[in-house]
């Protein structure tokens, strides 16, 4: 094939204009989420107590945003891969139970409990994936079943572990009794960069209490986890071979398989990743609260999917963005916490949720038509 025939004459098509910068921006899946973030920010700057956008206020709304965001990162990867997981909320409760039971009931060291929790979640994710792939049933139905199964198992397990209660306490005490435990405890709980914040406060660069303590003692670790995971997942999706396989598996599994993409392996691994994200959120929140209960993660699966959709993920798969989903979660946190800085009844949050979802789906539809040139 050394005979490289000369390129044929290019016939420029006068009906097509070259892609401008504007078109390129419009083509980004995150566009809707960024616009949403701007609108919500402007709205709260306008009507909320200015304390909201001070450092302490930002940490206040970023903490719940980060917890949801970790779930949304998993959900968005899975959605780009063409599947749903409605069981992540229940998985948070179930993984929380496993984790707390390991630490409190069995008295295992913290690192062992963490490993077991992730292993259990991964096993359920794997099982979910296999069930979807081998039965050919929609993942919507299969994981809907697990939404109930896992929630039920969490309740039953909690009663068993506590002797009748649906709350398991004493995690913090049991998780910090050796230096090794304390080391791991600090990775999954508390604040990071405390030294930096103390130094900043000492130099009067951030707000502090009269006694010299900074008002915000550090960045909550869930925010660090959230940002790190978002960057990692975004790079994997956009820049690696595996990322290309995720897009391909979601866009058209048949075409992907014909081109040599191992779609089954890709989808199974995505179910595992999603379940592990739920386990991470479980560990973070259980350590933070010092206890676990059966309602943990309630309805989080829907919020995670909505955040992913706001972030530009198509319900049909094959298109979307991790960064968009992360921004979607920040919008959520902002509205949930932001409303408490206003005189608006906080229950409007749910109305907002529904409205935002509708708008996002509508917007995504337009974007998709633009991308694929459908008319």
């Amino acid at each position: 094939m050394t005979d490289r025939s000369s390129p044929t004459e290019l016939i420029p098509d006068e009906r097509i204009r070259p892609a401008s910068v504007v078109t390129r921006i419009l083509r980004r899946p995150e566009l809707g989420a960024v616009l949403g973030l701007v609108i919500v920010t402007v709205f709260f700057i306008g009507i909320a107590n200015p304390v909201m956008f001070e450092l302490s206020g930002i940490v206040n709304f970023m903490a719940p945003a980060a917890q949801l965001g970790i779930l949304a990162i998993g959900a968005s990867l899975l959605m780009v891969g063409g599947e749903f997981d409605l069981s992540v909320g229940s998985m948070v409760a179930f993984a929380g139970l496993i984790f707390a039971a390991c630490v409190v009931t069995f008295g295992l060291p913290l690192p062992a409990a963490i490993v077991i929790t992730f292993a259990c979640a991964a096993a359920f994710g794997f099982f979910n994936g296999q069930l979807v792939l081998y039965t050919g049933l929609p993942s919507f139905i299969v994981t809907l079943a697990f939404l109930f199964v896992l929630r039920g198992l969490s309740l039953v397990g909690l009663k068993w572990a506590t002797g009748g209660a649906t709350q398991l306490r004493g995690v913090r005490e049991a998780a910090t009794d050796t230096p090794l435990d304390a080391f791991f405890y600090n990775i999954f709980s508390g604040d990071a960069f405390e030294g930096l914040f103390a130094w900043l406060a000492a130099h009067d660069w951030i707000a502090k209490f009269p006694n010299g303590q900074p008002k915000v003692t550090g960045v909550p670790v869930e925010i660090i986890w959230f940002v790190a995971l978002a960057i990692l997942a975004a790079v994997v999706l956009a820049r690696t071979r595996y990322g290309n396989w995720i897009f391909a598996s979601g866009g058209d599994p048949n075409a992907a398989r014909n081109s040599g993409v191992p779609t089954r392996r890709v989808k199974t691994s995505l179910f595992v990743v999603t379940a592990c994200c739920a386990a991470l959120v479980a560990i973070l929140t259980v350590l933070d609260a010092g206890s676990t209960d059966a309602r943990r993660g309630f309805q989080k699966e829907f919020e995670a999917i909505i955040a992913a959709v706001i972030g530009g993920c198509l319900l049909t798969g094959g298109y979307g963005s991790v960064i968009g989903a992360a921004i979607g979660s920040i919008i959520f946190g902002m509205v949930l916490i932001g409303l408490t800085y206003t005189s608006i009844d906080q229950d409007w949050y749910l109305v907002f949720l529904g409205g935002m979802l509708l708008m996002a789906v509508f917007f995504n539809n337009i974007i998709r038509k633009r991308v694929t040139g459908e008319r």
Partner: protein
Amino acid sequence: MTTPILEMRDIEKHFGSVVALAGVSVSIQAGEVHCLLGDNGAGKSTFIKTMSGVHRLTKGEMFVNGEPVHFTSPRQALDAGIATVYQDLAMIPLMSVTRNFFMGREPVKGIWPFRFMDMGFCDRVTREEMKRIGIDVRDPGQAVGTLSGGERQCVAISRAVYFGAKVLILDEPTSALGVRQTSMVLKYIDMVRKRGLGVVFITHNVRHAMAVGDRFTVLNRGRTLGTAVRGEISADELQNLMAGGKELADLSAELGGTV
């Protein structure tokens, strides 16, 4: 005549009690376009799938460069240089031209865990390969969905060629295209032939077959009715062979020769 790059001898394929192929023989030379004509249900699709390793043969022999082969998976056929471009093209409309071009065969660089897709290289190759066939992809990052049907077909073909196909099987590449797009694809098939590949061009459009074909084999009811060389056979004769002769000739007379 030299050894054919791909030869199929007395191929039979049964699905349970259904005999889809009942003894089909075809040989493909390098640098020729071999047209495989047949009406719907003639067994064209089954035959393609046996060539590309999707179906196993019930009976018959298959040779690549004179060596007998037994494909058990499409991967093996692909490794032997037999690439198939199916009607659905194995392209994903939402993904960019580049990502589609390299789907499943992404070049990576760097050391694990920092092994990234070489997007610069991918974009460059895609743009060059498209330019060679006269398609100006201004932005290889644009989604395949924005390309016309003919352009998509050309991307699918050039992808197969780029990844080292020796025999290219095209499943009705022109069936859904307009006039201009068809000529674009036919022109490209001609280019591929000149590069020394063997092309199997499946179609039921005699005019498209006559435009580029070197040899013509007609499939009817799971059998080959012989292979004709260009110039030995007219379009009308091919048409009649495909239809099984009589009925179409009668119909054609009724409609004033328009079929």
